[in-house]
């Protein structure tokens, strides 16, 4: 008996550019990955949702600020509120922050320069649906490519996040000016994660690193176990 493939929706916004890579990577990691159009008001029957990277709606006003009001995002908010797994990558992270699903905000890089390179990251927790295949303290190499990845939270919020262990990934060295080198966070409930690095660009050694597959296959496995529980 083969275990069922979990179904994972990949949102497509106008201006997204990593939607195909996300779909391809999830399929390669044994998920039934399907596109969801930004103007759809309902999600198909999915076990998880991925918001890919790009420049949704031209990133006008602030990155993610317009995409947050896309009809499909209302469905994503409902999905997340009911405990559904949601992963936002890069622009997807920015959108989830603007939508209030994740804490903080992504600002212009401190250097004002676009950063595009492989970066080392430390995994802070392995007990979330997005990091089950990782080990705490593990060093991952995953590429970043962004102009606005400088994550910020004020002192009060940052202390709360630390206390609740919501910081999931940190850069091993400075990358974009992000507060305390935060590269990825999770919501309090633990079902919504956002990160600036691109795991979908690092799922095969041919691409320089396959460490991104650890994050994405954690998501696929978590989505699969939810399917099995539902059955």
């Amino acid at each position, binding site marked *: 008996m083969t275990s069922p493939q979990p179904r994972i929706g990949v949102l497509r916004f106008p201006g997204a550019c990593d939607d195909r890579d996300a779909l391809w990577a999830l399929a390669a990691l044994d998920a039934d990955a399907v596109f969801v159009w930004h103007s759809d008001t309902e999600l198909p029957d999915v076990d998880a949702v991925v918001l890919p990277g790009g420049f949704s709606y031209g990133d006008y*006003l*602030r990155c993610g*600020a317009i995409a947050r*009001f896309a009809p499909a995002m209302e469905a994503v908010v409902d999905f997340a509120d009911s405990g559904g797994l949601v992963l936002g990558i890069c622009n997807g992270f920015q959108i989830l922050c*603007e939508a209030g699903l994740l804490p*903080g*905000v992504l*600002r*212009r*890089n*401190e*250097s*004002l320069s676009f950063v595009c390179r492989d970066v080392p990251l430390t995994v802070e927790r392995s007990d979330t649906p997005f990091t089950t295949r990782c080990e705490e303290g593990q060093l991952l190499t995953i590429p970043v490519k962004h102009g606005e990845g400088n994550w*910020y*939270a*004020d002192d009060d919020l940052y202390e709360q996040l630390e206390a609740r262990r919501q910081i999931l990934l940190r850069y091993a060295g400075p990358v974009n*000016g992000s507060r305390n080198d935060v590269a990825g966070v999770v919501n309090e409930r633990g079902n919504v994660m956002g990160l600036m690095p691109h795991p979908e660009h690092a799922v095969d050694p041919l691409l320089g690193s396959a460490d991104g597959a650890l994050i994405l296959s954690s998501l696929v496995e978590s989505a699969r176990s939810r399917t099995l529980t539902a059955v």
Partner: protein
Amino acid sequence: MRATVLVRPKEGILDPQGQAVESSLRQLGFAVDEARIGRVVDLEVEAADASTARAQVERMCEQLLANPLIESYEIELLEGAG
């Protein structure tokens, strides 16, 4: 009714764009201690009176035009215009 919204980076929030402009101004020989860069949004609002218009624009700021974590905003209403 015409309204202008000024969105600014909050006090104490790092503004790398402002810093870059500040250092360029200094290179040009200007004595500048600080430059901060915000955004102007000009609006033409349909509203019966000024207080309704202001309330509407405030909601726009809260929901979309500014991110309260890092930005503050000011609203100017130009009555009689439009």
